[in-house]
């Protein structure tokens, strides 16, 4: 009988292991080309981003949800820089949605002229605050998606097109 109990316990333990958690801590920035601009899509884990913004801006905690966009966007502008063909490129983002896990932003870059030969991206969001954090930058081009993983050791990448 004891054997059966142990067996059932192990089966329950094994079944319990089937629910996976998000093991890696990372944000995601997606760039999709349109004529003369890039559309931007950003995604962070909610808790991680709020924690990071509060660490840099203590008054953030007392703010109402309606004013989050201002604080969170400012944090993103401080930590993400872009350049096309080695020339700095400004962009705008807006808080789009918040669900139980993720916070989403959408936006677009300013218009640029000429063919894009390279895109440089610096993204050090959260990596100074959270151990082993990384930021994935994905560049969509039709069906092809190229992804780059930025970290504390390598916060910047240059993508040659």
């Amino acid at each position, binding site marked *: 009988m004891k*054997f059966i109990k142990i067996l059932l316990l192990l*089966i329950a333990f*094994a079944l319990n292991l*089937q629910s996976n958690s998000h*093991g890696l801590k990372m944000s995601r920035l997606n760039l999709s080309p349109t004529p003369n601009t890039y559309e931007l899509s950003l995604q962070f884990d909610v808790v991680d981003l709020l924690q990071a913004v509060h660490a840099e801006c203590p008054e953030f905690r007392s703010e109402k949800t309606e004013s989050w966009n201002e604080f969170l966007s400012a944090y993103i502008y401080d930590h993400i820089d872009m350049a096309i063909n080695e020339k700095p490129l400004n962009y705008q983002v807006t808080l789009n949605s918040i669900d139980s896990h*993720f916070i989403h932003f959408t936006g677009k870059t300013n218009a640029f002229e000429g063919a894009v030969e390279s895109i440089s991206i610096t993204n050090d969001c959260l990596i100074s605050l959270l151990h082993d954090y990384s930021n994935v930058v994905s560049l969509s081009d039709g069906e092809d998606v*190229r992804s780059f*993983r930025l970290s504390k050791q390598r916060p910047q990448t240059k993508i040659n097109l």
Partner: protein
Amino acid sequence: MKRILSISCIFLTTIPLWSQGIIKGTVSNEETQEYLEGVTILNHRSQQHTHTEAKGHFKLPGTSFGDTLSFYSLGFKNQQIVVDADFLTISMSEVMLELDQIIITPNLKTLNTLSAINVELNPVGSSQDILQTVPGLFIGQHAGGGKAEQIFLRGFDIDHGTDIQISADGMPVNMVSHAHGQGYSDLHFLIPETIKNIDFGKGPYYSSSGNFTTAGYVDFQSYDQLYESTIKLDVGSFNTRRAVGMIDLIEGTPKTDAYLATEYLLSDGPFESPQNLDRLNVFGKYITEIQNNTLTLQASTFSSQWNASGQIPMRAVQSGFLSRFGAIDDTEGGTTSRTNLKLDVRSLLNENAFTQSSFYISKYDFELFSNFTFFLNDPENGDQIRQKESRSIMGFNTSYNRYISLGNSKLQLEGGLSLRNDQVRGNELSNTLNRTTTLEQLSLTDINESNVGLYADAKMEHGPWLLDLGVRADHFQFEMINYLTENKSSKATNKSIISPKINVVYCPSTSWQLYAKAGKGFHSNDSRVILNQENSKILPAAFGYDLGGVIQAWDRLYFNAAFWSLYMEQEFVYVGDEGIVETSGRTLRQGVDLGVNYQMLSWLFADLNMNYASPRALDQPEHANHLPLAPTFTSIGGVSAKHTSGFSGSVRYRQIADRPANEDNSIIAKGYFLTSASVRYDQKHWGIGLSADNLFNQKWNETQFATDSRLADETNSTEEIHFTPGTPLFIKLNMQVHF
């Protein structure tokens, strides 16, 4: 090592319950008092036979006072006694190996007996060579000594383990959905000197073996106890240094013992860019008996780091740009580690039934840098890739065994359950530069994969016949989180498969047997393939059969032969350009295995093993239906000596024939024929040995791939053979002390 041979006759139909005429007893080693497992006991009058089980106990039905019984075990002097009591206590004394001690019985594993002789005569000295003790199995190392070896068996290029189930003391070695490829099996956490027995079976015919058992299975079983401590030192070519310590921690009793084994290996290999292989192994085992339960706790840990010169293009060598031992990208290499904890409980429920259960957990890390195509995809930075993962494995196996008497027949029933869960964190493929800079993230996933397996097996022995019927059911659950998709998207699926087996053995005398085996097996696909490609089979099945026999043609001469066939619903194929294994269509392999073992003199032995295979893809046109790198002919053999004076030695060869490296056979992977020799002198408390591999210093390619690559100064790519050069003459001096 004598016990290795005594295991060879394992066939656990040993505790039948007869109502009358049963003789019981125990058999032990006269010198060490250790109980002997697998001793064959034959009643000359009734022709009934049995074998001792793990604790040396036996029961022989149909036996009366005055009957003559013979006791046989390889490495021990045969004994004949006349039954004069209903409980016999037998002590057997060790003698030199005699092939005529082999008794052929209705048993599925007679080939294991013959293979164990070769292991006894030619002890394995490195973890790479452990697998090659399986007849017909070849390996190839192509990444600096730290990566798992590439495996070839029965017309399969198994890559690193896609089609062979490998385990150590029942704990799985194959890694599902591994960063480097499905079924990746790194055996370097084993210390060869701790291996007591190698249990193997070719084909998908064994109910207790599940995932990956298509070409076959191999289980390495470690010693439960040491009877002396040993310190061993190896010094070899190419700055090879190896130290092994095996320490008997407590004064062993039949009930409790413990030992600790360590191995430390350093080697630069023959490459211009030293491989700096650095590996540390620690293994410990504790065994105790509590009433009718035997508890075994074992723990092991290993770590390894190395550099590699990779696979180099033939054109670079032929043009003089590189030497055979040079490198295009010498920043290849990696690190890996594995830590295991395992608890086994064997419980004797009554005279006719026992259970055996084990629980294990493993922590595993792996990071590998490779460059297969050099500058094909990225002319500026090169094509180096990183494959990385961190994994936890938890598993549980249990089986229930019962022996039943049915008149003159014996029935062994076995049922089992296994659970396994793999949690892989950060399974990564990325483009890197000089190992230090991640250029592009190609894949990044978490994987959670579970397997529940159930099996039932019944072996009925009646006169000269053995009928073995089995079935197993496996259920898999696959989950994956893809970090490179929106919202870290998660996918999941599950699948089950039923695998029936049937084996028949006809053994009319103790000198020959015929057998027929048939069964269905399977290998699971990689979670990333299953969940990303809708047309991929999740659990492609394999259907096979073997027809064969073993015959003792003369007192000390044995032949074995088998014709076999294996059909697979879906194949894994190595893609050289990507350095990955991907799935393809249906395949059919057919072949013949032949073996000879002969003892020429009391101290001189010869053996020969040849394997022919015809591997074909069924969904390809006839001119392009070859399976790249699949071996078509392999052979091993040699002459070995073991003299009572303490001298021993061998001269052996290993051959693999030329084989297709691509589908239309337009590129050939060149074969090799290598010779090795060794000589040893052993006394009770010390020993010394000298060995030479590749005795004639031949140029040979250990692994080869047809790959499309581009060098830095080339404008166009070239598809041709890329190879890892085999080790030239390698001399090793070995010293050991026992205390």
